[in-house]
């Protein structure tokens, strides 16, 4: 019997496979295909204090082995989430990660206060969304602003606090250390990379927002590098994401230092990906004689 469980900030997940925020809605759509209790945790669509409409369409473009989105945090607001979605999600034996955003520090503080008082397992602070004018990535790309924001949020956060990092930075370690110093319990990375696609026939951007966030298999090697860097500069659990498509990818990220991995965009190609990734990790551990999933975390033997 292989022990697939991992621990993130004192919370035990039955396995290291999560769904990435924004790619799994609130779980309802994929609950039609398989039992959500199979998942280690579900990170829900990014939430804000008030409902948000998001950006005008088109919101998506396809790129080589990837996609660019500019959804822009469309969501029904934290109140609706608590009333309508938590009761649904709690029917399943899995952990709930509330991904939260705001325009200002006090926005972040107030939504964290509300969300962390509700029946969820983790707060994931999204300081890395490239698709909103105020807040989002603007907060996540400077060490000082990250430190300040995390410190303020920490004061009111009653649940384990995951800080979600932006890859659009010169030095990911500087940001990771700022989050750690201000009280983050865990880090998740990477969010999307700012990108653009132009339709050469219309000579207009494909996205109405002009630019958006790149995700999918194309970004995987960048994610692995950043996870490895971060794991080597802070003492926090790391949730890895960015292009995970197979059990082998998940194992690679865990070897680089991820305590758990999230499946995002690849879900759109195959909605069963998280289940297959769980099986794939299990198969790898079996084949290589590991008893516990946690044995491979950070186990890369660098030169």
């Amino acid at each position: 019997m292989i022990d697939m469980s991992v621990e993130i900030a004192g919370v035990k997940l039955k396995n290291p496979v999560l769904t990435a925020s924004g790619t799994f809605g609130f779980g309802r759509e994929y609950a039609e295909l398989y039992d959500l209790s199979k998942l280690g945790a579900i990170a829900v669509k990014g939430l804000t204090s008030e409902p948000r409409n998001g950006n005008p369409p088109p919101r998506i473009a396809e790129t080589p082995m990837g996609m660019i989105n500019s959804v822009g945090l469309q969501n029904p607001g934290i109140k609706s989430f608590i009333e309508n979605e938590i009761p649904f999600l709690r029917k399943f034996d899995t952990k709930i990660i509330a991904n939260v955003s705001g325009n200002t520090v006090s926005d972040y503080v107030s939504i964290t206060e509300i969300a962390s008082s509700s029946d969820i397992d983790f707060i994931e602070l999204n300081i890395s969304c490239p698709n909103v004018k105020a807040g989002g990535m603007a907060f996540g790309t400077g060490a000082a602003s990250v430190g300040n924001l995390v410190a303020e949020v920490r004061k009111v956060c009653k649940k384990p606090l995951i800080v979600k990092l932006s890859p659009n930075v010169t030095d990911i370690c500087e940001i990771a250390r700022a989050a750690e110093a201000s009280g983050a319990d865990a880090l998740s990375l990477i969010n999307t990379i700012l990108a653009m696609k132009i339709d050469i026939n219309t000579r207009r951007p494909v996205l109405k927002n002009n630019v958006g966030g790149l995700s999918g298999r194309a970004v995987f090697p960048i994610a692995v590098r950043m996870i490895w860097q971060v794991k080597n500069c802070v003492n926090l659990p790391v949730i890895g994401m960015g292009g995970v498509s197979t059990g082998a990818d998940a194992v690679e990220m865990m070897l680089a230092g991820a305590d758990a991995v999230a499946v995002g965009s690849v879900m759109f190609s195959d909605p069963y990906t998280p289940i297959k990734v769980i099986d794939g990790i299990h198969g790898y551990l079996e084949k290589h004689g590991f008893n516990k999933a946690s044995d491979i975390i950070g186990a890369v033997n660098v030169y």
Partner: protein
Amino acid sequence: MYIQEDGTVLSNIKISETYYDMTVYSPKIAGCAKPGQFVNIKCGDDLLLRRPISICDCDGENFRLVYENRGAGTSMLTRLITGDNLDILGPLGNGVFPTGVSRVLLVGGGCGAAPLLFAAKKNNECSAVLGFRTCKNAVLTDDFYSVCENLLIATDDGTMGASGTVERPVNLLLEKHKFSYIFACGPRPMLKAVSIIAKRHSIPCYISTEERMACGVGACLCCAIKTKSDKETYSHVCKDGPVFEAGQIVLED
């Protein structure tokens, strides 16, 4: 209710300059598909996103797709042959065409004709106007001819039927006959024009819309379409549509 099914290609035939007609054995999806619904198809391993295609016809075991060869995904579909496997999510969409009603005017532009054929078969006393760029790309005309009371064709270049857009033939039919419903599917400008005509005649109008999609099931919120209401809000083509009452939607370009 939708599922993932591995269908089998029964036939895949080029039917015009750019259009293909594919029949897929897919009993679970075909067993419950409704007119207006679509399937989201995996087109090979190197494309991250599936491709949404409307169900054009369905006999409970097989469904039929009529699609245009436009880019990487659809061109991959053109290469499939009888017996090939097809990874499908479907049937998708909750906004569908009404069924079991009578006196329906169907207005299709290009590949927009596809979902209307299925709708024609599930309703009574239908008439149709189909618009195409040119005669070389006119498709499904025989199929519509056999299930419709009236069929008018328009082509942009006048090589088949009336010259110009579908508007004149639509007005012609509306003058001569009484319709209880209008169903339309096609490019945005056509949907706009038809909606206006329907409103003028006070005929309930259902339009099938398109938007770029990722998940196809309502999880990613990528396929937003502007919805009429006091403040700006969005519906989602894959989940709330693809068929909407014309009055609900803001048809931007």
